[in-house]
């Protein structure tokens, strides 16, 4: 149960393009937070199709100067957050929320492996700087599609030097995740932030290597899966509802928009509170949560509505609403 948060008025001070697709936003809040730790993120109210929606972004850099820096990758096919952010101009007002950390870095471990893919570098960058400062034993492996996609590469090379290794996919370079995990001290921790496939691979290899689950750290905002975001339709026979879920809305949001009572917690695919049973799926279900195990996902019995979606087509689901008369049979919203 997350504490309710107060919105904070802020201003976009400046932007700077780190790569052709990644833009750094420097945000000045009215009330700076006392302490921002590596792995922290802020939630930003982003205007998407004319209405503000919450998006989470990792803070970049140690901060401490009262400014929040986030890096946003422009994804035309995404849920609209990045496009909304990229439209913002320096000087514009913004509403944000107090930094929070759900990807906390442990200090004092004997060894660390940091794994970053693409825009996943943002929290990892800050962790690498912090570990360097404490003289920790760590390595950062940073993969991106092309050389020009390696945001913050120069800064990293300058600050952490030989502890850094780049992997440029289009030049045929791939991280040997199993080999790298094997090199890590048994008491060491692995931190991963990157595309869905990278995280899935890291989790699988980590488990297969018999490493303790508690020493694998990762963060996902649940905004990437196996498939690109696409519209799909949900049917809820019990409530007599059919709802279209647009590409830029989550299934949970679409249910809420349609007036379906839902309980939820993290809204990032971690806690399992907004889970609903799948009765039938006409297309592949794109499970983007970290709540279910791989085996559980494979059975397709349930899904986390806050992050998971259908690749296309339609899903038939149920809800816990046991009201006898369908309450929602009229006024099916056109979203």
């Amino acid at each position, binding site marked *: 149960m997350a504490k309710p948060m107060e919105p904070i008025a802020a201003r976009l001070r400046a932007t700077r393009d780190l790569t052709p697709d990644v833009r750094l936003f420097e945000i000045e809040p009215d009330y700076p937070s006392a302490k921002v730790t590596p792995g922290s993120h802020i939630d930003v109210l982003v205007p998407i199709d004319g209405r503000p929606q919450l998006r989470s972004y990792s803070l970049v850099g140690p*901060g401490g100067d009262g400014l929040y820096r986030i890096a946003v990758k422009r994804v035309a096919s995404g849920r609209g957050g990045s496009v909304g952010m990229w439209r913002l101009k320096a000087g514009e007002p913004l509403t944000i929320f107090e930094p929070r950390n759900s990807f906390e870095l442990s200090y004092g471990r004997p060894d660390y492996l940091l794994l970053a893919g693409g825009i996943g570098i943002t929290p990892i960058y800050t962790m690498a700087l912090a570990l360097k400062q404490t003289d920790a034993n760590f390595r950062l492996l940073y993969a991106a599609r092309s050389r020009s996609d390696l945001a913050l590469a120069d800064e990293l090379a300058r600050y952490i030097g030989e502890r850094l290794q780049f992997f440029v996919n289009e030049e045929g370079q791939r991280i040997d995740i199993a080999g790298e995990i094997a090199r890590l001290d048994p008491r060491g921790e692995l931190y991963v932030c990157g595309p869905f496939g990278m995280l899935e691979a890291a989790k699988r290899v980590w488990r297969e290597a018999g490493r303790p689950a508690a020493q694998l750290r990762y963060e996902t905002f649940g905004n990437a899966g196996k498939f690109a975001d696409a519209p799909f339709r949900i049917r809820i026979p019990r409530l007599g509802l059919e709802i279209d879920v647009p590409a830029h809305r989550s299934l949970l949001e679409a249910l809420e928009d349609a007036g379906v009572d839902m309980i939820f917690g993290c809204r990032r695919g971690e806690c399992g509170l907004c889970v609903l049973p799948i009765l039938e799926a006409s297309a592949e279900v794109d499970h983007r949560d970290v709540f279910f195990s791989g085996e559980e996902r494979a059975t397709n019995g349930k899904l986390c509505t806050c992050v998971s979606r259908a690749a296309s087509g339609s899903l038939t689901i149920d809800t816990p609403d046991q009201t006898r008369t369908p309450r929602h049979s009229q006024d099916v919203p056109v979203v």
Partner: protein
Amino acid sequence: MNAPKPFPLNAWYAAAWSHEIARELSARTICGKNIVLYRRTDGAIAALEDACWHRLLPLSLGHLKGDDVMCGYHGLVFNSAGRCSYMPAQKTINPSACVRAYPVAERHRLVWLWPGDPAQADPAKIPDFHWNDGTHWVGEGGTFYQLKCDYRLVVDNLMDLTHETYVHAGSIGDEAITAAPFDVTHTDNAATMMRWMIDIEPPPFWGRQLARPGRVDRWQIVTFQAPSVVVGDVGVALTNTGAPQGDRSQGVSGAFLAAITPETETTCHYFWNFVRNYRKDDPQLTRELQLAHVNGGAGVYDQDHRILEAQQAAIDKNPRSPFYDLNIDAGALWARRLIDQMVADEQDRVIANLAAE
């Protein structure tokens, strides 16, 4: 921004005697932070935030499961680094689930804890408290846990020993202390108060320790290490035998040791010891000295305890800031200046620390 606390967080504070932390959960509040301490099977000590990630029940109400702590409410398990390693009724672990792990180190028979930014916790900064090792100096101390006063009142107490004349009359206090001049010096992290009382009758306690007739030179060289450790080099030697020049062979030396840990803004844990370098193989004397310091309410430290809590109660009732100061307060004022500087530096860091860009 909140008013700064009266203590820096980026410092090592004594949290327990080493022997007090075993294979069970021990709760402490240090600098306002609730912490659970325990010893792992490999002998190392772990210190975790004493509140379960899930519903905040103190983990100290749970139990140890190997090197991990199991919450006594819903069974969540946290390892000694604070990472959740088990959640009920699911096959996975929420990746954001953790409790804070505090840097902790054992040195000089004490457990030291760093309540601030773990990235800055450098064991090299643990105060020099080697007198407490139990080797060259011997003595057994204790702790006044949850002493009801601002830890700085204890620092004040130890940095000005004229109070001995009045609070500890009949044992270590006498008129010679208030009559003798003293010097106060400081560095950027320590303050020292030095007083020599030349050619005096020894006070009763020191007369018994020396166990030789004659007048003495008595010294009190009290050093404060910011933010909260005080070591007092004290003793007597027969007068005219060269003690002020460095030859203490005709005397007895002791040291009072104090590691004072803020519990809250108005309570503290006072780890004390009195050690000596004479009659070191006399456990009977060790026991007597320990008893003399507490003695069921009549010992030297009990006398201080009563004064300090009464002083804090009076401060709470009659807030008057600052205190009026006397020349005898020079040592305490330098100590407080060093504490204030640490607190201010910590505040500045938050604001002025430059971003990487």
